[in-house]
């Protein structure tokens, strides 16, 4: 039965491997757990999930898979209802009421609708005209035609049972980065390297050693230098939402690759175009914003600047104060871009939309002009051209 669970996990996007599954089996065989479901949850998580960003996916699959088993008395009940309900209904309903059921599309249909409602309800946690039990507009619930039967789904003892750890979904916030075929992108980003020797001297400097040994009358005089490190610093601005939704995948890959490749990487989000503030956590974009001025002042001019966005918008959003679709911007987006470019001389714009389409959008032309033609498609080849520009 656990094989099933394992495959469900893989379907759910948790990259568990056979080796890890066998490790779990071994742990079970050695009686690491006491046998409770909570213990099993902790154990299987420690075996099968190797990154906290996958904890949430794991929780979801675990929750779905072990839902019935979690509370076996409930699950016994949960196994019965449909048959039992049907019988109850048949016993209890009058001819008239049965006709009513027919008019709703028959029992099967009714149960199906009911189940759907229940699913919706779990998701939304607040009522509405569709909520089971409000009577009135809903065919289900206390004021409906079958008070006893249909209510079972409603109590579902969901509220009484203590919430299980995996149902709390505490790790949702961590499930943000996806690494998919980012290796190529990393290789491209490697071009953006600026090696500097800093830190502890632990590498033999052969030339200097020979020179100073000669000076030292042939007695060995070892000279060491620090190892070389990538010291490049990058500021990354992502356009997010709206027309960028089509490119989420490639942007995630880009982000993931950049994050592992650069030690000094700062990233911010904006929507459509850069204005007076940006944000770092998209879910809190309305509450936590960083003034763009602060960014300009905080990061010195030797940072390399990369924008990622499709630059597809109304020209007003770039050229005019107050042109933003979301808020009133006192200064035009173009002004802000110019300010950025004044500080950061090495800058590029990466555009995930196909290069062939760029000519059709006025806004893309405007952004290209602003960037001094330093716009490159977000493809491997485009990335390489962009990186060349950044290290020029």
């Amino acid at each position: 039965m656990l094989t099933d669970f394992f495959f469900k996990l893989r379907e759910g996007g948790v990259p568990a491997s056979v080796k890890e599954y066998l490790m779990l089996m071994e742990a079970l065989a050695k009686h690491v757990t006491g046998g409770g479901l909570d213990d099993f949850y902790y154990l299987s998580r420690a075996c099968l999930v190797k990154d906290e960003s996958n904890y949430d996916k794991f929780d979801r699959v675990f929750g779905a898979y072990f839902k019935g088993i979690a509370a076996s008395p409930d699950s016994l009940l949960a196994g019965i209802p449909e048959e039992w309900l049907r019988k109850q209904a048949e016993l209890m309903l009058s001819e008239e009421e049965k006709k009513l059921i027919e008019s709703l599309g028959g029992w099967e249909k009714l149960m199906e609708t009911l189940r759907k409602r229940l699913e919706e309800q779990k998701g939304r946690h607040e009522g509405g005209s569709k909520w089971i039990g409000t009577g009135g507009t809903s065919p289900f619930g206390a004021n409906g035609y079958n008070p006893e039967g249909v209510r079972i789904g409603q109590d579902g003892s969901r509220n009484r049972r203590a919430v299980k750890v995996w149902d709390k979904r505490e790790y949702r916030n961590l499930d943000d980065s996806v690494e998919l075929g980012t290796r190529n992108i990393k290789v491209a980003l490697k071009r953006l390297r600026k090696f500097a020797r800093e830190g502890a001297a632990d590498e033999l400097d052969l030339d200097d050693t020979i020179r100073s040994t000669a000076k030292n009358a042939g007695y060995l005089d070892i000279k060491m230098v620090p190892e070389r490190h990538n010291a490049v610093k990058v500021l990354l601005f992502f356009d997010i939402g709206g027309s960028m939704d089509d490119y989420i995948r490639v942007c995630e890959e880009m982000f993931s690759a950049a994050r592992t490749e650069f030690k000094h990487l700062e990233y911010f989000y904006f929507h459509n175009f850069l204005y007076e503030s940006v944000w770092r956590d998209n879910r809190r974009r309305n509450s936590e914003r960083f003034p763009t001025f602060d960014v300009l002042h905080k990061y010195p001019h030797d940072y390399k600047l990369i924008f990622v966005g499709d630059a597809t918008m109304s020209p007003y959003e770039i050229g005019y104060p107050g042109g933003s679709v979301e808020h009133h911007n006192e200064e035009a987006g173009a002004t802000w871009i110019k300010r950025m470019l004044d500080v950061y001389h090495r800058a590029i714009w990466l555009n995930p939309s196909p290069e062939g389409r760029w000519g059709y959008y006025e806004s893309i032309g405007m952004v290209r002009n602003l960037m001094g033609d330093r716009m490159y498609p977000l493809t491997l080849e485009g990335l390489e051209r962009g990186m060349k520009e950044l290290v020029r």
Partner: protein
Amino acid sequence: MKFKGTEKYVATDDLMMAVNAAVTLERPLLIKGEPGTGKTMLAIEVARALQRPLFQWHVKSTSKAQQGLYEYDAVSRLRDSQLGDGRVHDISNYILRGPLWDAFESENPAVLLIDEVDKADIEFPNDLLRELDRMEFYVYETRKLVKARHRPAIIITSNNEKELPDAFLRRCFFHYIKFPDKETMERIVDVHFPDLKRSLLREALEVFFDIREVPGLKKKPSTSELLDWLKLLMAEDISPETLHGQDQSKIIPPLAGALLKNEQDVHLFERLAFMSRRTGNRG
């Protein structure tokens, strides 16, 4: 013997499970989590609880996997040869054992801490795969195979600065120490300061979690910083009332230097406190 936390270390159920599974199966345990949530402490406390010797290997950005096994000190040998030292003829004089070797050859089963594995080069974990899997390695200079007498319990910590290779991850148990909730935090404070006044603790925790909620902090205060701060509060004999009333009378909680480690954070905090006070007065 099972690990259940110690009198100085509060372990949550899931953490205990991960440790016990790793110890029983003799596989490495990878620990991640915010800085200051007690990742390094864990290894020390596990060793204490299980009464095993502890070997520590603190990884740095310049660390090489080989250094954990052994190092061949060619430079000393070269120097000795120039000075005509007799030791020079035996190469084993210049083989320096690393922490992994020590842990492998330990009399009793040991605990080995590999701290901050993510600080090293991206290939570093890959270079340790065979050693962690088979718990043996070959010393080329002396043509000797070093094999673990007892497989040590290996605890590896990471701060998530770099992603670790899959092959490495597959060989480990994994646990993410999430930031403790208020309840756990009270237990943690309890084991460190058993005689702390209840009221002070409650106020202090409130202030602490409030500060953590402030958006945009460069470095959120962590458990270890909370403990430092409490130590200071107790030393200065700050009353719970002072903490409670700090919103109105003072902008920043007393001795906040222990919690906010960064000038920008202090400024940010002052600004926010100032603004909230202004809106508070107006409303």
